[in-house]
């Protein structure tokens, strides 16, 4: 389903010219090489962000910003910056892969010892999280790669029809 589009390729080049060229996070090089209905993917097929030269973010990065600040921020702090309670995900995603991220969100994680009592719940049954898992990942990946600043993204692409459809199906399935 992921078709390499010439237009996207040109946009990516423009994008790379505007920001640091050498970059890698827990899923490798985040550069978008393909897209499908407004959703972008890196060379390994992992979801990724696309930031245009004027700062316009793709829909999923923007949506991830919103969902993160509803579901994750009460523990992990604003914009993935971390808190006194839970780690900074903008740092975590420098090492965690897309698959790691999915697994931890779905299953939760425990780190309870003498010095710490960190427990993340399983969100596998929470459609407010699971229906937007890629959105949240893409936003945090952009934060990890330092291409989206703190605060609300000021400009964004329109919500793709595919996102509207997928959201309906996902939420309706509950």
């Amino acid at each position, binding site marked *: 389903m992921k078709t390499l589009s010439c237009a996207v390729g040109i946009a990516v080049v423009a994008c790379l010219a505007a920001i640091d060229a050498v970059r890698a996070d827990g899923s490798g090089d985040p550069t978008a090489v393909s897209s499908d209905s407004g959703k972008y993917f890196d060379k390994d097929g992992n979801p990724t962000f696309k930031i245009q030269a004027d700062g316009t973010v793709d829909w999923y990065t923007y949506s991830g910003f919103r969902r993160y600040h*509803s579901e994750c*921020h*009460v523990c992990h*702090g604003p914009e993935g*910056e971390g808190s006194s309670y839970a780690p900074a995900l903008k740092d975590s995603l420098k090492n965690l892969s897309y698959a790691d991220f999915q697994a931890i969100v779905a299953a939760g994680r425990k780190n*309870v010892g003498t010095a710490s009592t960190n427990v993340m719940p399983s969100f596998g049954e929470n459609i*407010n999280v699971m229906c937007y898992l890629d959105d949240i990942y893409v936003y945090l990946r952009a934060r990890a790669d330092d291409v989206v600043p703190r605060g609300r993204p*000021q400009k964004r692409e329109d919500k793709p029809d595919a996102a509207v459809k997928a959201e309906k199906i996902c939420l309706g399935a509950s």
Partner: protein
Amino acid sequence: MRPRGLMRDGRVSLQLFGRKAMPMSKIGKLALMTSCAALFGGAILPAAANDELAKLQQDPKQWVMPTGDFANNRYSKLKQISADNVNKLQVAWTFSTGVLRGHEGAPLVIGDTLYVHAPFPNTVYALDLNNDGKILWKYEPKQDPNVIPVMCCDTVNRGLSYADGKIFLHQADTTLVALDAKTGAVAWSVKNGDPSRGETGTSAPMVFKDKVIVGISGGEFGVRGSVTAYSLKDGKRVWRGYSMGPDADTLMDPEKTTVLGKPVGKDSGTNTWQGDQWKIGGGTTWGWYSYDPELNLMYYGSGNPSTWNPRQRPGDNRWSMTIWARDVDTGATKWVYQMTPHDEWDYDGINEMILADQTVGGTPRKTLMHFDRNGFGYTLDRTNGELLVAEKYDPAVNWATKVDMDKSSKTYGRPLVVDKYSTDHNGEDVNSKGICPAALGSKDEQPASYSPDTGLVYVPTNHVCMDYEPFRVSYTAGQPYVGATLSMFPPPGESNMGNFIAWDGKTGKIVWSNKEQFSVWSGALSTAGGVVFYGTLEGYLKAVDAKTGKELYKFKTPSGIIGNVMTYEHGGKQYVAILSGVGGWAGIGLAAGLTKPTEGLGAVGGYAALSNYTALGGQLTVFALPN
């Protein structure tokens, strides 16, 4: 060793609020002393637990309740430390709790023992004041760590209560446990809620008369809030009153329970909700409760309705965001007042109710004062719930122009909401900008202190605004049920995120105001020495002049302060104690610093990050004057 003959009728005259002495008819019962009596310098203990606590709180050498006294004044008659000498204060001793999470609340001092609690795992230590704080006993409950992630904003615990030779602990997993004050042995234990549904325990249990009363947390998980009274003696449940639901659940009488002087009518706890939404309606109850023994009423506030998306729950959502007056014996609701009908901003109404007798508008009143998250400072007549004063205690507050005080108006008692800042008016998926205060409120749970000497209330405040965008969410039991994105920042043109203010509750006016770099998230203490103490998020314990607010002393403790200052006297010396341990909502919201939304792309958060000033830690620091 428990005193026998618990009295059913609490309306006996107690030496409280400095009015009535204990009647002679009760003196006979005083012969029944507990073994603890000797600890209290020969003080005689009355028979009923309410008499015991009422008596004990008259002794300024001890700090016997999490709120200092029934009236929630957090005022001490001790005056060895005064405005003249507080600048000489020194650290006398310290104690590490061994836990790194946010430390709210304050220790108790009963006789020669100091009792201190910690966040999850909710360790309790009894420390011997005669022996340099040697550990007399330690209690650490076994709790399923799965409760941790359902505690929305850190694993805080707001402290212990004492009565009848027992220490009461309200654990994270909602277990209420009674410990023998001498040995730490469990006397009884009862489960108040179900963490798998998002119900957790963070509030301090409160002892009024022969009951221990606990609330519940979990407003961000669709929990239906309640307060529950358990028998002091054996933990048997006596009554439970919900924040919403049918009259049988809310313990309301359609005719006798009043709101602003009028009967509430039938099923007022369901008829402003759509369908069954009241069942996951929120209105949790995790603040500090107060009690008036003469009226036999307890007072507390209920929290925000679930979800944070107002469009998803049309109606006034009664009785979330409400001040409650309940009969302590039966739980029956005497009166209610809803401050923020149909919340659109998470202005959780749980903050403490402070009781004081003062003259308002030329009339002596038994008043209740409350500083709500919504930024209004309220003064009500606590006998009947009449609204006397409702004024902004932070000039930045903009979501409402005022509270309608016109008794003939259709909107009497309601805030007059500004459309621009109404997240319901603006709708789902719209980002409403520049709303003051932020969801943190102009004040959160950090309790204020009332000094009868100055007639002023000393209020720790937040000075933070927000953008708020609600959107649709689905409810899953035990999962967060939020439905809004928000970002926070100081009011336009300002950089201080907090103020510490003196407030006149008779007129609703700020008397003085001190700027603080961060929100002031520590409970205040006022004393007969003319000093007011509070802590800061950077970790300073500060002392200011009660009359002028002038800073007289500060000392930087090892971690940020979200605990409450308390004082006691031992061996002829006055001590001031504070728990350090940054965390809670403050640690989550402010650790990384706030964002400056107006600067858009390329800008880094323009405000100080708390993480540059302090790190995790859990420590009790105790101060005294040098010998």
